[in-house]
């Protein structure tokens, strides 16, 4: 029995907004950032209305409450990805900071000249630039696992690259352009066989698929709350506890220390060691509420719902003529990036906007992938639990208008 998703739409107040007279928002850009259900906003409001205080060091009631709310949120995040313990979860600003944290701490300590880092050609800039910075700083080397024309990783090439004994393999669990879902468990097992550490960019997978990090067994997993019904300003890094424990600290300041003297400092326990300064407390509370919301629906159900819309959208786009969708035809997430020959994505997106339809146009922070596919930019429609096949129908109608204007 499948769940009726239409009822969830009303949980998101913004979806009843008219962006132009008579044109209600049809939001097809959840890959960039999702909308927030009222229940998440209420959780943050309640925090500010009743419990707001700085955490960890406060002896008074509201500070103890705030501390408990913050640490409960950490426990929720841990359970959501099946981490063994809340101690394995570091709160960051977003996926980008999570990956940089690993590059700055684990990377600077363990990578040296000529060490190899393997990435894939479908990475987001956030999982490319931090490593390129280490190329500049420490002369490490990067190689890219190729993407085949149908958007799938070239696993044979991967196996060959592993023979060069990379120290780290870092890749997205789901591409934010192609919708490709990568074989994370297999890739992790193969990487471990040559002694490499594995970092997974879960920015698109944790919000959209059930993820069991212990089953995958990767060392690190990075993701952002704002892409999973949570607030901006907070993200998370999962790390295996022993690794986190050995890593040098990241930023220096309050809370990450055990003791400071004029002569030096010693670091606090994991995860506090990596959370310098006052953290995003209200945002952690919102993150926790978002996880409760997603869990109440069920990640299996959400993935299935999105898959259905994506496959329907893929078929409608291909039937409509003059449109080429990139990426795989099955086993894909709810992301459809496409090219309309002769019409620039900016123009497509702008004309769709006049119909209330929000899609992204550009390289979606994956310039190298676009270079590889020979496209400077694409138009991208993406789906979440609040979307429906009717949204796809509206998109198709909007695209017909685009074609007409440029005909």
């Amino acid at each position, binding site marked *: 029995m499948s769940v009726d998703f239409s009822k969830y739409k009303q949980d998101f107040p913004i979806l009843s907004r008219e962006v132009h007279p008579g044109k209600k928002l049809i939001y097809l850009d959840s890959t960039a950032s999702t909308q927030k259900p009222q229940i998440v906003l209420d959780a943050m409001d309640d925090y500010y209305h009743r419990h707001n205080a700085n955490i960890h060091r406060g002896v008074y009631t509201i500070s103890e409450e705030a501390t408990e709310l913050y640490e409960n949120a950490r426990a929720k995040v841990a359970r959501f990805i099946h981490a063994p313990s809340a101690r394995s979860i570091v709160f960051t600003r977003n996926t980008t900071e999570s990956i940089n944290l690993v590059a700055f701490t684990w990377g600077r300590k363990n990578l040296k000249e000529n060490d190899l880092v393997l990435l894939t050609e479908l990475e987001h800039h956030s999982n490319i630039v931090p490593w390129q910075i280490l190329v500049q700083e420490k002369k490490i080397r990067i190689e890219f696992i190729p993407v085949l024309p149908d958007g799938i990783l070239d696993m044979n090439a991967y196996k060959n690259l592993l023979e060069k004994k990379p120290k780290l393999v870092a890749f997205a669990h789901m591409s934010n352009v192609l919708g490709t879902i990568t074989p994370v468990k297999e890739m992790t097992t193969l990487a471990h066989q040559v002694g490499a550490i594995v970092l997974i960019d879960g920015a698109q997978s944790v919000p959209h698929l059930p993820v069991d990090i212990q089953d995958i067994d990767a060392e690190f997993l990075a993701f952002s709350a704002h892409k999973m019904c949570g607030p901006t300003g907070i993200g998370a890094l999962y790390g295996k506890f022993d690794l986190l424990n050995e890593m040098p600290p990241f930023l220096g300041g309050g809370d990450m220390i055990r003791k400071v003297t004029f002569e030096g400092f010693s670091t606090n326990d994991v995860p506090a060691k990596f959370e310098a300064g006052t953290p995003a407390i209200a945002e952690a509370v919102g993150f926790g509420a978002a996880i409760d919301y997603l869990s109440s629906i069920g990640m299996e159900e959400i993935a299935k719902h999105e898959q259905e819309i994506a496959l329907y959208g893929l078929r409608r786009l291909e039937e409509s003529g003059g449109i080429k969708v990139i990426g795989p035809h099955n086993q894909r997430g709810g992301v459809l990036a496409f090219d309309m020959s002769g019409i*620039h994505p*900016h*123009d497509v997106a*702008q004309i769709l906007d*006049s119909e209330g339809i929000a899609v992204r*146009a*550009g390289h979606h922070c994956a310039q190298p992938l676009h270079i590889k596919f020979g496209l*400077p*930019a694409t138009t991208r429609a993406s789906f979440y639990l609040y979307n429906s096949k009717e949204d796809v129908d509206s998109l198709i109608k909007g695209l017909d208008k685009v074609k007409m204007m*440029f005909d």
Partner: protein
Amino acid sequence: MDDLYREIIIEHYKNPGFRGELDPNDYTYEDENPVCGDHIRVDIRVNDSGIVTEAKYSGHGCAISQASADLLMEAIIGKKVEDVKKLTKQDVLDLLGIELGAVRLKCALLPLKVVKAGVYGVGKESELSDLD
């Protein structure tokens, strides 16, 4: 919206009058919009009195940036280089006849940015900052 894609824009986009390259040229420059990767190159020839005699653009981009480039080439031909330097954001918007949000404004102004960088010589950031 339909305002945004006024006939003049679609027309200049579909049937450009000044696409191409000039070699040799007196000024040439190219740049891109980091937001979308749109790329524009402009080549300009001037005569002894410092008057633009020919101007062409190449590259790729959206209807707004391409129409803006085409209209701008048309506008600068016959102008003194000194006057080209004085062109403003508003001049471009007047040529296009539309109003634009911040993101699309960058599309519309890319050609002017390239033209100015070309005639000033590269790196005169400060003189170009009024385009942001």
